[in-house]
């Protein structure tokens, strides 16, 4: 055998650091006090943190958990700071708003099942068959949250199979693109004209219903999560399609994508929400009762998708041209090249931007309070309007901030985990 060039074939196992190189003191020396400037900054920052805690903690640590009104806090000589009773008193409302008590297990169940549904997306160790559950979860969640007959959801689901069948039947004779277009068309037609009469008929034959809950009863954190998650779930694929559209060689598709992205990015979200709450009523046929939450979800999705598209386009642009060429040279067609080669890499590059967009979207759901939906901010306003809690400010908003932070922080930690996991160079 010919001598091989000197290349390391096995990576060496990392060795434990020599003694005296570990431990908290070592870490502090390396990271906080590595030089005079660093030491001064560390000490100043440390003093600042201590000062903030010194002012904050005495205010925050108060025996006020059981107070039932602000005046009770003010009259109690033991309470000299925060009046946490408002959280205790209104906890259920902040979570569910006016969702009926005896039915609150339904959103809770949906929330629990959500973790089952996103697990196979987030972690590749989870069994793959759960992806089928993931795909059905949105419809299941809709049914659990709003109740009523399950048939419309089942019929919407059937739409996907119709589209798939049409595609399958046409892909041979008519080619990939035609088959996709006609498949999508068949699905849309079924959703618009087929779903509601057929669902009604089937409901007559086999009733499948649970107590319905109206959208006006929705609110609190539950509403934020519903809108946020729906927005995230739908804006992601839409964003991918728009990013690809923007890169397309086909003039019409490219122009439409660019036009859409630039238009949406030029308009504040709040405008779109007003359109959803007010203007759409003028355009929709009289008598159609197009749910406000659904309209908001659509607007939030459309809004976030434009940003998502730009983030993903950045990832696409960062890929060397050679990746496209290698995929082409191997005979992969456009869709396979995108799905197997280009997108996995582009998405990986864009993870920080994508998660940033998700976090932004989730926080932007608080804007719905302006069009009268009772998300936590909307509820805070109405709680502060009651006689019991008139005048309370910090405690409520801090709590709301904390709730949002828990979600956004988990997202950002997950994104770091994912970036780390997908690293394939050492």
């Amino acid at each position: 055998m010919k001598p091989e060039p000197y290349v390391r074939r096995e990576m060496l196992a990392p060795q434990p650091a020599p003694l005296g190189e570990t431990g908290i003191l070592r870490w502090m020396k390396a990271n906080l006090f590595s030089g005079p400037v660093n030491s001064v900054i560390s000490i100043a920052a440390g003093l600042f943190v201590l000062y903030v805690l010194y002012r904050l903690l005495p205010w925050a640590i108060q025996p006020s958990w059981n107070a039932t009104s602000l005046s009770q806090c003010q009259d109690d000589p033991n309470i000299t700071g925060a009046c946490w009773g408002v959280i205790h008193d209104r906890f259920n409302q902040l979570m569910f708003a006016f969702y009926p008590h005896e039915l609150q297990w339904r959103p809770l169940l949906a929330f629990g099942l959500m973790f089952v549904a996103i697990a196979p997306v987030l972690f590749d160790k989870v069994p793959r068959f759960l992806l089928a559950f993931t795909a059905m979860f949105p419809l299941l969640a809709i049914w659990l949250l709003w109740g009523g007959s399950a048939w419309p959801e089942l019929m919407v689901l059937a739409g996907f199979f119709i589209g798939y069948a049409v595609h399958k039947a046409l892909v041979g004779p008519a080619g990939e693109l035609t088959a996709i277009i006609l498949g999508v068309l068949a699905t849309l037609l079924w959703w618009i004209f087929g779903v509601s009469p057929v669902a009604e008929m089937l409901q007559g034959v086999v009733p499948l219903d649970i107590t319905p809950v109206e959208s006006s009863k929705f609110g609190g954190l539950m509403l934020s999560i519903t809108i946020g998650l729906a927005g995230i779930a739908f804006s992601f694929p839409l964003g991918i399609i728009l990013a690809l559209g923007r890169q397309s060689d086909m003039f019409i598709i490219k122009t439409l994508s660019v036009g859409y992205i630039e238009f949406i990015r030029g308009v504040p979200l709040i405008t779109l929400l007003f359109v959803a709450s007010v203007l759409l009523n003028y355009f929709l046929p009289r008598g159609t009762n197009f749910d406000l939450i659904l309209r908001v979800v659509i607007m939030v999705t459309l809004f976030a998708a434009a940003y998502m598209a730009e983030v993903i386009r950045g990832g696409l642009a960062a890929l060397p041209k050679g990746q496209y060429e290698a995929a082409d040279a191997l005979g992969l067609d456009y869709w396979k090249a995108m799905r197997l080669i280009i997108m996995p890499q582009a998405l990986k590059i864009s993870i920080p931007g994508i998660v940033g967009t998700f976090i932004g979207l989730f926080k932007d759901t608080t804007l719905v309070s302006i069009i009268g939906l009772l998300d936590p901010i909307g509820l805070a306003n109405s709680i502060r309007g009651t006689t019991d809690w008139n005048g309370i400010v910090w405690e409520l908003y801090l709590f709301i901030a904390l709730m949002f932070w828990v979600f956004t922080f988990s997202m950002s930690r997950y994104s770091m985990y994912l970036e780390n996991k997908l690293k394939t160079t050492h």
Partner: protein
Amino acid sequence: MTQTAEKAANSSAMHVSDEVAIEVRNMNKWYGDFHVLKDINLTVNRGERIVICGPSGSGKSTLIRCMNRLEEHQKGDIIVDGTELSSDLKNIDKIRSEVGMCFQHFNLFPHLTILENCTLAPIWVRKTPKKEAEETAMHFLEKVKIPEQANKYPGQLSGGQQQRVAIARSLCMKPRIMLFDEPTSALDPEMIAEVLDTMIELAEEGMTMLCVTHEMGFARKVANRVIFMDAGQIVEQNEPEEFFNNPQSERTQLFLSQILGH
């Protein structure tokens, strides 16, 4: 098979058949109003090993990239394996799956392991069952002498190893023609030999090869024709001995003196 018998079989495989693999007729290409390729005529027979050289910017890459439609030509015909290259997508995909290509910068897929790099196209384009594709991939990885790297990622390999993987990846599609665009020019000198050895072995097995390279030792050893290009034209082509010892045109002489001179 014994060593000598193998050699004999190899040299008989190096025989060039009369069957035409690639035919290029009066082909022209422009970038905007820049005329990159001018009236290219070229016939490649099955089993031929052609080395293309020429100064930078002379259109070598563009020429071989036209042969699997990474670049589109505007005038003339290119017929690969009996299929004419036109804008018909079906023809393009067919030709691409039968023509392997190796690039200067390897272009491995960094998010996939070496094995996945090699099995991807057979599985998705040829619809080969996964297990079979993996066996084929291991076979070719053994051939390029890096089966033990199969589960690593491209970023963990040296340049020479990556280029050999790229060759194996192309071979997994069982191509009838291989195109190489300066496969060794991004490599450190000590890694060039390992890649050239792989290519020589491939040539000995009778693969039809078109290779843009300035490795003149390689050209002497395996090429049966060397083509010199300048300013978008084929200036001269000849058998390697004749080409190097007795170049006809002045431009060829100048080019050879520059790359062999010092």
